[in-house]
C-alpha cells in the first residue's frame, strides 16, 4: 500500500499540533486520505512530542512506523528520528539543526519569516516538498487565522509564499505525492475519533452531557460545547466524576438522552453510578477513552486494557452493552447505536475508545445527517393504563418508561430492590423476579449485537483477531502477509458484549492459527472469547508500552518477515 509518512516533532508549546492539523487539513482538502498519530508527553512545556500524518492517495486506516519526511521544530527531533527515516526520506529542519547529514533539507527559516511565523514557513516547506497546491494551504491558513487574527494574515501569507519560493529552486528535495484518487473537490471532513463520537451522539438526539476533565476524553465534551448553542444541548462540567455520572442519570430519568465521557481513573469513580443506572433502568451512554493504567499510569498515551474493567464494572448482575469502534467513521455510527440501544433496553451502554483513536484525525465522507433518526425518550403515556408500574414485569424485561412530570402518572424508581411500581421492597420473592426481569433484557441487546467484521478466505492459515482501534493495523498486516503468500484473514470486534458466538466461532475454528492482537498485556478479549466459547486463542500480539499497534509491530511480533 503506497503511502507517505510525515512526522512533525518538537517540544510541547512549540505549536506542532497546529502545524500538523493545518497540514492534515490541506491534505484532506486535496483529496487524500490521512491517519494521524499524536504522541505527546504529560508535560506542560518541553519534552518530545510528535504529530505524524500518514497520507495516501487511496484509503488507509493504520499508522506506520517508517518515516518519509521529518519536520523538525527542534534539534532533538532530528537526532531521535533519523534512524526511522526511509531510504528516500528527508528531514526538513532549520539550517542550524543538522549540518552533516545529506538527507537534511537545511532551511534558512530566519531568512524566510520573522520568528513568530516560522511554523507557517515550515508548513509551507513541507507542503511544497509534497507538491500540495499552494492555494489549498493558503485557504486552510486563512480559515484558521483569518477571522480570529486578521492582523497576522498578511505575515502568514508572506511566510508561506517565501517557503514555496525557496523550495521551487530545489527539485532534488521534492517528494511529490501521487495524484489523489478522488478528484479534488470531493468533499471529505477531517475529524478525529472523539469529534466523531460527539457528532454521532448529537445526531442520535443527545440532550445532556456531564464530565470532569480527563485526558484523553475531554475533547468529547469540548466538541459538544462547540455544538451546544446550535443544537440545544446542556453540557455541564461537574466537580468530579461521581457527580458527572449521577447528573447524567438524573437528566436521563427526566427524559434527556445523556452521555458521560471519561477515562479509566475517572470511570473508577463512576462505577457506583453504573450500577444505579442498571437498577433504576435508566438509559445511559458512557464513553471510556482508555489510557495506560493502573492509577495515573501514562496519562497521554494509549492502551486497550479496560475491557475487563468496563465489562464487570458495577456491583451485582445486570445487562449492558460494550462497543469498541475500529475507526473514526465507526465512532460516529456506534455512538448513534449506543443511544438507541440504551433507550430501547433501559441499560448502561459503553463505548470503549483509546487515546490513539481519540486524537487520530482521518478523512471521512460527510454523514448524511438529514436522513438520520433520533432517539425519542420514554414511552407514550396514552398507551399506559393506571396504576402506572415503572418496573412492570414483561416478557422482554423492558417496562414502558414514562418521564416524570410529563403525564398524570406517578413515576417512581428506587436504588433499593423495588416492586413493579418502583417502591422499596424486602419481599424476597419480588427480588427474585426482578433480577430475572432485568437479566431478560440481555436477550434483546444480544439480538442486536454487531457481527464481527471478517476479511479473508474461508480457511486461512492465520487469523488475526482484534477489537477497537487496532482494526486498521491488523487488516493491513493481514494484507501484507497475503502478499507474501501466507493466507491470512482478520476478524474485528466492534462490539465486545454481549458476544454472539454463532457469529464468529466457525471463523475461529476454520483458521489454521489464531492470533489475538490487543493493546494490553494479558489478552483480555482472547480470555473473554475462551470464557464464552471455550475456544483457546493460542497466539498473542500484545502491546502495552503506551504506543498504538502498527502493521509493522504485528509483523515483527508474529516473527514473520516485514512488509
Amino acid at each position, binding site marked *: 500500500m503506497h503511502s507517505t509518512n510525515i512526522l512533525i516533532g518538537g517540544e510541547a508549546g512549540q505549536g506542532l499540533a497546529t502545524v500538523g492539523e493545518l497540514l492534515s487539513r490541506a491534505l484532506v482538502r486535496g483529496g487524500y486520505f490521512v491517519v494521524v498519530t499524536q504522541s505527546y508527553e504529560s508535560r*506542560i512545556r518541553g519534552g518530545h512530542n510528535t504529530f505524524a500524518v500518514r497520507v495516501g492517495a487511496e484509503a488507509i486506516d493504520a499508522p506506520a512506523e517508517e518515516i518519509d519526511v521529518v519536520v523538525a521544530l527542534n534539534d532533538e527531533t532530528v537526532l531521535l528520528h533519523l534512524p526511522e527515516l526511509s531510504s528516500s526520506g528527508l528531514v526538513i529542519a532549520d539550517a542550524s539543526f543538522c549540518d552533516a547529514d545529506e538527507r537534511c533539507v537545511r532551511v534558512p527559516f530566519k531568512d524566510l519569516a520573522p520568528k513568530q511565523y516560522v511554523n507557517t514557513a515550515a508548513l509551507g516547506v513541507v507542503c511544497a516538498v509534497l507538491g500540495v497546491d499552494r492555494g489549498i494551504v493558503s485557504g486552510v491558513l486563512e480559515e484558521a487565522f483569518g477571522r480570529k487574527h486578521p492582523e497576522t494574515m498578511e505575515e502568514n501569507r508572506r511566510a508561506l509564499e517565501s517557503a514555496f519560493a525557496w523550495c521551487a529552486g530545489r527539485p532534488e528535495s521534492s517528494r511529490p505525492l501521487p495524484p489523489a484518487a478522488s478528484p479534488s473537490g470531493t468533499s471529505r471532513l477531517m475529524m478525529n475519533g472523539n469529534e466523531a463520537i460527539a457528532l454521532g451522539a448529537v445526531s442520535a438526539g443527545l440532550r445532556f452531557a456531564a464530565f*470532569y*476533565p480527563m485526558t484523553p476524553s*475531554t475533547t468529547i465534551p469540548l466538541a459538544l*460545547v462547540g455544538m451546544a448553542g446550535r443544537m440545544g444541548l446542556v453540557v455541564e*462540567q461537574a*466537580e*468530579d466524576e461521581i457527580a458527572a455520572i449521577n447528573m447524567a442519570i438524573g437528566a436521563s430519568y427526566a427524559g434527556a438522552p445523556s452521555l458521560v465521557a471519561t477515562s479509566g481513573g475517572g470511570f473508577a469513580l463512576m462505577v457506583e453510578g453504573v450500577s444505579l443506572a442498571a437498577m433504576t433502568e435508566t438509559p445511559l451512554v458512557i464513553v471510556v477513552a482508555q489510557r495506560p493504567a493502573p*492509577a*495515573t499510569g501514562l496519562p497521554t498515551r494509549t492502551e486497550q486494557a479496560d475491557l475487563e474493567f468496563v465489562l464487570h464494572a458495577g456491583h451485582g448482575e445486570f445487562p449492558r452493552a460494550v462497543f469498541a469502534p475500529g475507526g473514526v467513521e465507526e465512532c460516529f455510527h456506534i455512538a448513534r447505536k449506543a443511544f438507541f440501544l440504551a433507550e430501547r433496553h433501559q441499560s448502561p451502554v459503553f463505548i470503549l475508545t483509546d487515546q490513539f483513536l481519540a486524537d487520530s484525525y482521518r478523512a471521512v465522507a460527510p454523514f448524511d445527517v438529514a436522513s438520520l433518526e433520533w432517539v425519542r425518550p420514554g414511552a407514550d403515556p396514552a398507551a399506559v393504563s393506571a396504576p402506572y408500574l415503572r418496573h412492570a414485569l414483561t416478557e422482554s424485561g423492558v417496562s414502558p418508561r414514562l418521564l416524570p412530570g410529563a403525564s398524570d402518572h406517578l413515576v417512581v424508581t428506587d436504588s433499593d430492590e423495588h416492586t413493579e411500581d418502583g417502591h422499596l421492597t424486602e419481599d424476597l420473592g419480588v427480588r427474585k423476579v426482578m433480577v430475572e426481569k432485568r437479566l431478560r433484557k440481555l436477550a434483546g441487546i444480544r439480538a442486536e449485537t454487531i457481527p464481527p467484521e471478517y476479511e479473508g478466505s474461508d480457511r486461512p492459515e492465520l487469523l488475526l483477531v482484534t477489537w477497537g482501534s487496532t482494526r486498521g493495523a491488523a487488516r493491513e498486516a493481514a494484507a501484507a502477509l497475503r502478499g507474501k503468500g501466507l493466507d491470512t484473514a482478520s476478524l474485528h470486534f466492534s462490539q465486545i458484549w454481549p458476544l454472539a458466538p454463532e457469529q464468529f466461532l466457525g471463523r475461529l475454528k476454520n483458521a489454521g492459527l489464531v492470533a489475538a492482537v490487543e493493546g494490553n498485556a494479558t489478552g483480555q478479549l482472547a480470555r473473554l472469547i475462551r470464557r464464552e466459547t471455550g475456544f483457546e486463542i493460542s497466539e498473542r500480539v500484545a502491546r502495552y508500552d503506551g504506543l498504538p499497534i502498527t502493521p509493522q509491530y504485528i509483523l515483527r511480533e508474529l516473527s514473520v518477515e516485514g512488509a
Partner: protein
Amino acid sequence: MESLNVYASRLVTKREHFAPGHRACQGCAEALAVRLVAKALGQNVVVASATGCMEIISTPFPFTNWRVPWIHVAFENAAAVATGAEGAYRALVRKGALPEKGTVFLGMGGDGGTSDIGLQALSGAFERGHRFIYVCYDNEAYMNTGVQRSSGTPFGASTTTSPAGKLKAGQVTWKKNMPEIAAAHGIPYVATACSSYPFDLMKKVEKAAKAGGPAYIHILSVCPTGWGLPSEKAIWIGRLAVETGVFPLYEVEQGRYRITVDVPAQRPVGDYLKPQGRFRHLTPEIVEQIQTRVTAEWEKLRAKTAL
C-alpha cells in the same frame, strides 16, 4: 516595612527541600509557592500530593525536586492519604515502634483537586481532627489539562470550558470561598497567602505546623500561561490581587480573624483585571460588578476581624 523585609530575608534558611530544576512554565508562581512552603517546613515532613501541575512538573526523572518523602496519589484523595499516613505514624509512635520526631504531614493539591474533586476527602480530614496541614495551590483553573474552569475560577475569567463569547463573559459563577469553608469546620488554623508575599506565606506555614490540629492554607498562585500574562509579571500581579482586595491575605487562628497584609487604600479591581488575557473581554459594567462584589466581601471580612 521595606527595611524590615530586607532583614527578614536574612532569617530565612538557604536550604531548599523543593530543589531547583523543575519543568514548570517560566514565571510560575505556584512552583515558587511550593518551594516556600517546603522551605518553611524543613526536612521533617511527609507530603501527599494530588494530581496536577505541581506533580507533573516536579517528578519526571531527572527533573525531580522533592528532597522529602513524597507520595503522588489520585486526584481526589490527597487529604485522605496524608491523614492516613499521619494516623499510622501516631499509632506507631504510641506503640513505641517509631520515635516521636514531630513529623509534619502535608497534603497538597490545586484548586480543582481541593475545591472540586477533593473537597469531600478534605472536609472529612478536618472533621476527624488530624494534626496535618493542607495547602491548596490555587491557580484558578485546571491548568495541567489545558485550562478548564474549576470552582476556583473567578467570575468573568475565560477558560476553555467557560469561554468568553457573544453571550457570556467567561465564568458565570463567583469563585468558591475555600478558606471560609475550611474555617467553618472550626479547625485551629486557616490562612490565605500568596507567593508575592513570601515572608507572610512562610510565617503562616510555620504557624500551621504548630497548630496542633488540622490547618489549611490557601495560596493564590499566579499562572502566567493560563492567565494570559507575560511570565515576568507573575509576582507583580499577585501583589495587585492583594492590593485591590481581590485576594485578601488573612488568617483565622482559633476562630479569630486577622488581616495580615493590610491595604488601607485599595486600588480599583481594574488594575488587577486589565493586564490579564483571561479578563480581556470584560466590559466596564462587568468590571464594576466585580468591584461591588470585592468591596462587599472585603467589608464582610473586616467585620469579622472586629469581632
